[in-house]
């Protein structure tokens, strides 16, 4: 009797197997609810999560769902949104994974689920999203206070606030989408070395000869104006660039106008020598000499040249840089009309056609 039954089973097996095999080969199709959404926004993302929660009371496959959802975050542009992460944690069932004895808590109760939650927190950390106390309550309800995700959460809450505002150059949480605003931020950051610097936004339309109609963010301090006015007429100024500056993940290219390297200020006088004490210079404006002692060394005098101005333009083209020089000339730098300016740009930036139409101006630049 038993032997017969076994034989039947064995006989039935290959057919059953082949049928299933054939079926699975022909009819397997992956349904991806994230892919099916035509509009990739936060609302549709949350909709998919809600739909998953509603379709099955047991929420089968929630670990796989969370992993799939984490991978799709960038596509929907929600990777920096705390609310979305909370919605994903909410998918995990409450109370089921809390260990009830020491053995369970020691040997990682429900390891895949715990690892999944840790990976979720990891992704938050990578994207710089700081969790809040509600997240802690949610994780406590899911894993209990001995859970690995809770340890991860506490570590994050200890360290992340320490690093959040550590940068000495503050940036807004949301960087502006407008390139002009971004360039202003970048130039302000670069020139924060001299608090006297004035950052101006000019339009190239002010110069009639300009071809590129764009904006220019230019920065120059009063010290730099003095340094520029002391540039000898026979030594050309140099425009260098484009250089990159990063504002988080945004890149702004900037150019610098370099003057000649000024001789180092040397003070050979011996301060301990009392044989010839000069008359004290007095207090400027009150007693004695009225002018301030000349500052010989400023931050703008770097070892590869004297930086006399910094700018970023909308197109980073040569024509816009030429307009920048003209605009600088208009704004309190009359010397620029008689000093030659050399363009040493690393790579031809922006349109190639732009300076094909421009050979005359190219010569003009070097001559003027």
């Amino acid at each position, binding site marked *: 009797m038993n032997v017969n039954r076994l034989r039947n089973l064995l006989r039935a097996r290959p057919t059953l197997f082949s049928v299933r095999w054939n079926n699975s080969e022909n009819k397997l199709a992956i349904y991806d609810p994230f892919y099916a959404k035509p509009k990739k926004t936060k609302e549709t993302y949350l909709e998919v999560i809600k739909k998953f929660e509603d379709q099955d009371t047991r929420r089968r496959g929630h670990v796989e769902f969370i992993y799939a959802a984490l991978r799709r975050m960038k596509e929907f542009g929600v990777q920096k949104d705390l609310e979305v992460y909370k919605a994903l944690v909410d998918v995990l069932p409450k109370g089921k994974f809390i260990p009830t004895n020491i053995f369970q808590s020691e040997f990682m109760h429900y390891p895949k689920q715990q690892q999944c939650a840790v990976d979720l927190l990891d992704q938050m950390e990578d994207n710089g999203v700081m969790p809040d106390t509600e997240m802690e309550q949610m994780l406590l309800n899911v894993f209990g206070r001995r859970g690995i995700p809770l340890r991860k959460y506490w570590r994050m809450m200890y360290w992340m606030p320490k690093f959040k505002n550590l940068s000495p150059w503050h940036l807004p949480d949301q960087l502006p989408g407008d390139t002009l605003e971004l360039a202003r931020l970048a130039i302000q950051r670069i020139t924060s070395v001299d608090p006297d610097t004035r950052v101006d936004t000019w339009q190239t339309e002010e110069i009639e000869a300009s071809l590129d109609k764009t904006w220019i963010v230019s920065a120059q301090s009063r010290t730099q104006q003095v340094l520029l006015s002391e540039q000898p007429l026979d030594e050309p100024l140099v425009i260098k660039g484009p250089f990159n500056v990063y504002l988080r993940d945004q890149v702004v290219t900037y150019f610098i106008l370099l003057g000649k390297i000024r001789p180092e200020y040397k003070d050979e006088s011996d301060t301990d020598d009392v044989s010839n004490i000069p008359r004290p210079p007095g207090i400027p404006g009150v007693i004695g000499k009225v002018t301030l002692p000349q500052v010989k060394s400023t*931050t703008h005098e770097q070892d590869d040249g004297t930086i006399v101005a910094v700018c970023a333009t909308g197109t980073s083209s040569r024509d816009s840089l030429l307009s920048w020089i003209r605009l600088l000339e208009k704004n309190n730098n009359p010397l620029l009309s008689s000093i030659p300016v050399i363009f040493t740009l690393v790579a031809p930036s922006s349109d190639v056609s732009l300076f094909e139409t421009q050979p005359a101006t190219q010569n003009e630049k070097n001559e003027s």
Partner: protein
Amino acid sequence: MALCRNWKTYSLQGYRSFSILCRQCDASALKIHSNVNVSPKRLLFWEKDRKGGYDAKEKVSTLQHIMKGFKEIKSEFKLLGEEAKEFLAADPLLIARPGETDLLWCFNEPKVLEQFVTTSDSDHNQGYSSCSFSPSPAGRALFHGYLDTRVPKDGRVKKAGYCALRSQRTRKAFKREATYNWHLYNTLVVKLRGDGRSYLLNISCEGYYDITWNDIYHYVLFTRGGPYWQIAKIPFSKFILGSKGLIQDKQSRMRLDRVTHFGISCGDKIDGPFNLELEYIGLEFDPTHDEDFAYEMYKTDRYIVGV
């Protein structure tokens, strides 16, 4: 049949790429032997390799080894002579003058750059970043390269994108390992010109036992960007203890007399070129800074921290 062939080519491809990767990188952390999804294993007991499996040392035969050794005898004896002279003649430093920077490395000469080694994830076939450390146009040192966070599709690497710069291990004659002694100072001074990215300063304090081999103290180096030089002064008390890049729960201050390496790394998850120009790296004693360690050292609940 078709299915079978498909399976075969697939497995062959899998085998090929695996073998290529294994030839150069034998990192034990990346080895997963079965298909079972396991949580990362904890190396609590024993670590056999100082480099954690990332050993790039070229293997030479015994004969070549002896020949190379003979060639080095002259320079090693010279080092020994200097060492003896220093032992007899030099007085130990007792105080550091406040406000004066003592230079560790000044990158005015290209020779100093040879004391540093660069590494990036593409060296071990774990990514696509590349970097180099070379003289800059202004005559200083330039740490530059391209950071790429693309992950190679080998099924093992999860995250990629780092470039690192590290000084070589300081040593005495005949390859005896030594350590830097910085206990007179309390501030690290770096003169640099960056590109607005943030970098990581790494100070390794490798010890004798294997659990201390990967101890590195980290701190962030923010750069302003732009053409102006910037001097960053960072107190040693702010450095955070990490092991294999993971911040440790039980923190402790740096043993400044046991420093083995200094390094800078770039890994801020932003794709693109990076440029960090360095003029010097130095040490300073700041008497106004009396902080011992910047982070809380209070006791927490049992079985929560450090497990």
